[in-house]
């Protein structure tokens, strides 16, 4: 565990084997904020390097997924979408779900993907997941601009009535989803340093998780009973449903479910950072 004492330019560090779980060392992450910005930039520079369509992929992926969902779930399966235009409903859902699931699955690989970097130089490891969440948030904001254009079209035609007065809480909602995804992701990542099986499970688990979340169906379509109960206990249900409610004006907002989701976010974030910091110190001896 490391203690810091800033005394003008002199900083004193004591490295020893005793480990404190309570010190989250967040001030150190803040000192490296420039690194977070650079990591975020690097993500965009590298993801679209040497692709023909480049950043256009940002729009293509959710667009094509939503068309597919509209066909399969909207028309073939005939899922009702609370009177909201089907395409818009699925577009909103996939955009927000993709943001969350990227935060989970990408951060779940933090240690394994960065083993060689972490083995050569010290910097607060938490900068990596934080920059990933930042990058995904920016990606989401770019994608949502497409959603807004389509939303505007339907709005003018009178098909949807967004709750503009609630838009102010959108940033908070996104931050919550980002933190929850990061928390879950880094807990998995901390565990995969020892048991690689988990990384195989992650992709699969996230897919299952999506079907347990009202992404391809509205919460209101679930019959009262154990199914709705289970969906309400899913901590992602609250934010996703609230997000659609604010944007599209339709959705089932259950305060208890949302409060549980908030509590879950706080727990998983704090626990995640603590576990992550703990594993970070010696994980190189085990990979």
């Amino acid at each position, binding site marked *: 565990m490391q203690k810091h*004492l800033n005394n003008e330019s002199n900083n004193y560090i004591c490295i020893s084997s005793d480990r404190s779980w309570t010190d989250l060392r967040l001030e150190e992450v803040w000192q490296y904020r420039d690194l977070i910005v650079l990591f975020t930039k690097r993500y965009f520079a590298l993801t679209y390097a040497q692709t023909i369509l480049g950043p256009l992929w940002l729009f293509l992926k959710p667009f094509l997924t939503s068309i597919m969902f509209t066909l399969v779930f909207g028309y073939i399966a005939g899922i009702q979408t609370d009177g909201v235009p089907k395409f818009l409903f699925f577009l909103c859902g996939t955009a927000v779900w993709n943001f969350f699931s990227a935060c989970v699955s990408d951060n779940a690989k933090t240690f394994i993907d960065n083993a060689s970097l972490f083995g050569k130089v010290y910097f607060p490891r938490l900068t990596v997941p934080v920059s990933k969440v930042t990058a995904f948030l920016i990606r989401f904001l770019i994608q949502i601009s497409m959603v807004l254009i389509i939303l505007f079209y339907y709005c003018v035609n009178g098909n949807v009535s967004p709750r503009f007065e609630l838009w102010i809480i959108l940033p908070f909602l996104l931050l919550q989803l980002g933190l929850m995804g990061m928390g879950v992701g880094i807990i998995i990542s901390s565990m995969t340093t020892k048991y690689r099986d988990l990384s195989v499970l992650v992709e699969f688990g996230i897919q299952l998780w999506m079907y347990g979340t009202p992404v391809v169906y509205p919460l209101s379509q679930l019959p009262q009973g154990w199914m709705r109960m289970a969906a309400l206990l899913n901590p992602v249900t609250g934010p996703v449903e609230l997000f659609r409610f604010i944007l599209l004006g339709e959705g089932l907002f259950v305060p208890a479910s949302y409060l549980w989701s908030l509590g879950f976010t706080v727990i998983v974030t704090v626990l995640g950072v603590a576990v992550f910091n703990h594993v970070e110190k*010696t994980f190189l001896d085990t990979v």
Partner: protein
Amino acid sequence: MDDKYAEMQEAGLAIRIRGLKKEYRLGLIGRTTLQKEIKRWWARKRGLEDPYSKIGQPKRIKGDRFMALNGIDLTIHKGEALGIIGRNGAGKSTLLKIISRITAPTEGEVEIIGRVTSMLEVGTGFHGEMTGRENVYLNGAILGMTKAEIDSKMDEIIAFSEVGEFIDTPVKRYSSGMYVKLAFSVAAHLDNEIQIMDEVLAVGDMEFQKKCLQKMRASARVEGRTVLYVSHNMSTIRRLCDRCIVLDEGKIVFDGDVDKAISIYMGTGETLKTEVQFTEKHRIHGYFSRDFLIENLVITGAKEPVYPEKGKALFEIGCRALRDLRNVRLRMEFWYQDGTKIGSMLSNPVTAVKQGPCRFLLEMDLTGLTRGQYYADLVAYCGENGVQELLDGVYPGIVFEVINSPDVVHHVEWSHQYWGHIRLHDMRLMLK
């Protein structure tokens, strides 16, 4: 905590290490299979020896635990340039990794005053798709600089790296020389008070290496930074450091004067011997099968290991083969006394070696070696069809001295510093 800080400040210390230990769990390092684990467990249950334990393992292995560092106490003053030397596996890298906070110690503590730059590898985090400039920013930030600091140093870094107008080209288009030069420049321009380096000076061409060395020396002597430097290259240690420690089996065996440290590391701490028994201490760590062990070496045909130039050396080597072997060869890898590896001698193969003890006679022609002291690693291997199977290696296999001989005319005393250590065949010069 404040007291400790004040105490260190008063003594002018940059780093204070007390009782540092690092233990590795072997089962977790060498990836074993579940099957092996079970067999191992079963053998332990019946009180038998571990079926997978190897002969020739270092003594520090206790059960499935390995002490990479076994109680290090060290204080380093501000502005000191400390060299760290030791054989492979002595614990040098582990020590640097703990000081640079890459891994945590098992016991003991390290106190540091000042920001630490660790250069265990140059170009950490460099990415081929990004331009030189972008990589400088990212690499600098990883090493702990803020964007403003990098901005203020950018011109200096570009000038030092000699990359010039290519700075805005993706580094994947760089030659490997340009790549390391740029990477080193970033690290060399950090303002941190403590710099940790693991043989990073072995980059670029001779000119650039010289420039780097000057830069490092300046940062220690002029700017008062503390430098920790690990290297196998004794001449850079000698030029850069003013104090040196020797690590062996996770402990500091010597701390002090650089030349003394180097001579201890090179084996001259021991006198020239006519007979050497090789123990675990001499075994080189690495991918040796240890199916064949070099056990002792006796010098025959000379009273002591001192030979005239162009002389012949005769040895008798005692070995033990743990199975029947074919085409066993020996290789002598020579070091000059300053720690430069100068060349190797290969032997003919011995076609059939039966299981059990055996003795060999070895004759070496020393033509070409000039006056001075030499060490040789002795490596046994099987070599066929271009594939080498390492059997065993000992270090130093032999220590010997070459003296001037009346039969060899020099006209001028041989200059090791400028001419190298080997006198190649003489040339013929004729008037046309």
